């Protein structure tokens, strides 16, 4: 029984770890997608460091457990038990040293990555985009020709007529040229400053390729800035349970070259 346990445990450990090395299965990848953001490599690096450190601990402890159980299986009747060399002390010391050093490094480096994303504010030239989440769609607003966002009036929200943000163009000139779209289009290599807000319940803004996730909390305007570094079409999905349509709450993110973006913006301005 002990040998079986040890063997099964070692097989489980090997198979679990193998996916770490071979995670592409035809059209299906069980790994992080391409990183398309400036800060993303920091996140990825941190994740890999943690992967190596904790992966080592995982393999070591599972294999030791499996090994000890294996050994324990065919000992003779009347066996005098042995104590682990040194008793509890090496356990405590190695746990404090191994794990302590690992968590010290992780929190030190990790905090820098986190700080790089959240403790800094966007540079002055960043492109502002207003993001509104609601059951169950995202809408994006660009300031338009005048560079000013119209004020929000929640009581004026009327989705049937396309007034998703609650703008008041009749009385508010700044709102008249605001561009409202359902796909977020941004230029590559330019900093973007999002202002996230929700009109009903908590939603979340998650783009895998940007390594970004931020809850969108009603009552709060949450700033989030990033720079996309690869053109392409990505999905923005909601990751905070928001009701029956949660799983269908998404929008596309299109990262275009500056020229393509300028052309797109001109077309949108003309359509207003």
């Amino acid at each position, binding site marked *: 029984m002990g040998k079986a*346990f040890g063997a099964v445990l070692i097989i489980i450990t090997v198979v679990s770890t193998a*996916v770490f090395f071979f995670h592409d299965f035809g059209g*299906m990848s069980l790994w992080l*997608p391409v990183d398309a953001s400036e800060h993303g490599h920091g*996140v990825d690096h*941190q994740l890999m460091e943690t*992967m190596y450190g*904790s992966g080592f*601990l995982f393999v070591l*402890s*599972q294999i030791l*457990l499996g090994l*000890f*159980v294996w*050994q*324990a*299986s065919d000992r003779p009747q009347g066996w005098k*038990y*042995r*104590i*682990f060399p040194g008793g*509890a002390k*090496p*356990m*405590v010391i190695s*746990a404090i040293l191994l*794990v302590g050093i690992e*968590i010290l490094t*992780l*929190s030190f480096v*990790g905090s820098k*990555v*986190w*700080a790089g994303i*959240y403790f800094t504010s966007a540079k002055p030239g960043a492109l502002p985009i207003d993001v509104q989440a609601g*059951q169950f769609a995202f809408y994006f607003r660009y300031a338009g020709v005048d560079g000013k966002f119209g004020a929000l009036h*929640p009581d004026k*929200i009327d*989705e*049937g007529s396309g007034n998703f943000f609650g703008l008041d163009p009749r009385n508010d000139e700044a709102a008249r040229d605001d561009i409202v779209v359902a796909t977020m289009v941004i230029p590559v290599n330019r900093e973007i400053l999002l202002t996230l807000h929700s*009109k*009903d*319940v908590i939603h*979340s803004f*998650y783009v895998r390729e940007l*390594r*970004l*996730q931020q*809850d969108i*909390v*009603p*009552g709060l305007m949450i700033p989030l800035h990033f720079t996309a570094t690869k053109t392409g079409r990505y*999905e923005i*999905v909601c*990751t905070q*349970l928001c*009701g*029956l349509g*949660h*799983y269908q709450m998404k929008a596309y993110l299109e990262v275009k070259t500056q020229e393509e973006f300028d052309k797109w913006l001109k077309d949108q301005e003309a359509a207003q």
Partner: protein
Amino acid sequence: MSEAAHQHGEPTGFIRKYIFSVDHKVIGLQYIGLGIVAVVIGMILSWLMRLHLGWSTLAIPGLEKLSPTGAPANVMTPEYYLSLMTMHGTLMVFFVLTNVPFAGFGNYFLPIQVGAPDMAFPRMNMMSFWVTFTAFLVLIAAFFVPGGPPLSGWTAYAPLSAVGESSGPGEGLGQTLWGLSIAIFCVAQLLGALNFIATTLDLRTKGMSLARMPFSTWAWFITSVIGLLAFAVLLPACILLVLDRVAGTSFFVPGGLVINDRMQPHTGGSPLLWQHLFWFFGHPEVYIAILPAIGIVSHILPAFLRKPLLGPRVLIGCLAAIGFLSYMVWGHHMFVSGMNPFSAILFSVPTLVITIPATIATLLWIGSVYGARIRFSCASLFCLGFISVFISGGISGFFLAQPSIDTYLHATYFVVAHFHFVMGVAAIFAMFAGIYFWLPKMVGRMMNETLGKIHFWLTFVGVYCIFMPMHYLGLAGNVRRYAAFTDDFLAPLVPVHQFITIAALITGAAQFIFLYNLVWSRFRGPKATENPWQATSLEWSTTSPPPFDNFGGRQLVVHQEPYLYGVEGSAGDYVMQTSPETVEAH
């Protein structure tokens, strides 16, 4: 005090003996029984969910009968999926993971392990169970009310859970019942925790110093202290949530919300307040589930290793440290919630620090296995399995404790894998170990070891097949709490979900072997002796099952440390705690 608490004689009527009983043993069995009912429901719910995740357009025969609106033409709607998920989480966390290892086994064995005839407050103890049972009925009622069962998850984030029916199906009466049920549950837990603490501190028999208490007793004691503080926060939070729903208050709902084109009447509340209150309870709750499990495993393991664990004092210190730290880390559930990003660091560091006592405990177990001649039984296999899944679940905590990584992995299946391993599967393994180990004591019959071993192997391999792939799904960004995977990047991952579903069906089916074994052994199992495992603690110094006052009028005197295995004693290779003989150190 112990006499005062136990003045009442043994009741004779069926109702006072088995239903409204003040006997902690009956109450313990009632908790375990309720837990088994809850876990069966919860597991069937997870089957339905898994089927839907694997094959989202699948018609599940009979589902329409269960809920005509939730599954028209037997195809599950997304709101019904979310309701099942909510009920699964709530049932499992509250009525299984809290009820069985803590309230169930704790009630049965804490008084016996300290040599007391009953709990300190037997009537309050009876009340705790029946209040818990009421909470259970209220929660189950939420399945059948108009508007459907609640769907905002076991975390019930406001405002979704607070604004009422306008925010969609499942947010009507069902959600109110959810809030009430949890509030009632908190009351029961508070009463139970007080009782445990008083019993541990006041009713220990002669010679039972704190240092001579078994690990399980220590774990139940520390858990009671955690529970006392944690449930005392969740109770008012649930009351406030229910008030927001029915009395028009705005504790958790900000002003200016527009739901379905309609302005909401609320003003000035904070959705983050609910999260802070909930997680201030919610994180310690993880330890309310896992500390008793750790205690049970540490208690059972030495009896089968036939040697004491390494560093028993260190292990108890680790439990206490985990309990203490559990109050400083709730914010790690909220890294991306919109709270101040500076506080993320503040919550991240103690979260990582918790891994130190957890790692020490794990290494102590592994080191204790070294050099032993293990008696392989179902109980010991589940203990060894526990160590393995506890490692697997704990390791992923390193990732989620760091805000910079959590910003990618938060709300993905990586998290699902993490907490299912470390909190769900680990605690359930400890419960299985506890039942295989203690059932002879509780009902006086041995369980069938062959069936038990089949059950162990299917479960052990099964849970790895279910939860290990979820880590990789999480790394691929697979979002949790989705009723179906229709997004472009999620659709290719569906085959993995189908694999997990099949594994879950098989593993779930294996649990019926256990149930069969349980029922069969209860009536047909071979009679158990007083001490079938040759174990040392006080529960093995009385008959199986113990008499009404636990020791038949004797007052036990404790002479020994709790785990004297592998020493020459009059009974064999072990010395009972009650044995007055002199023992030489190994």
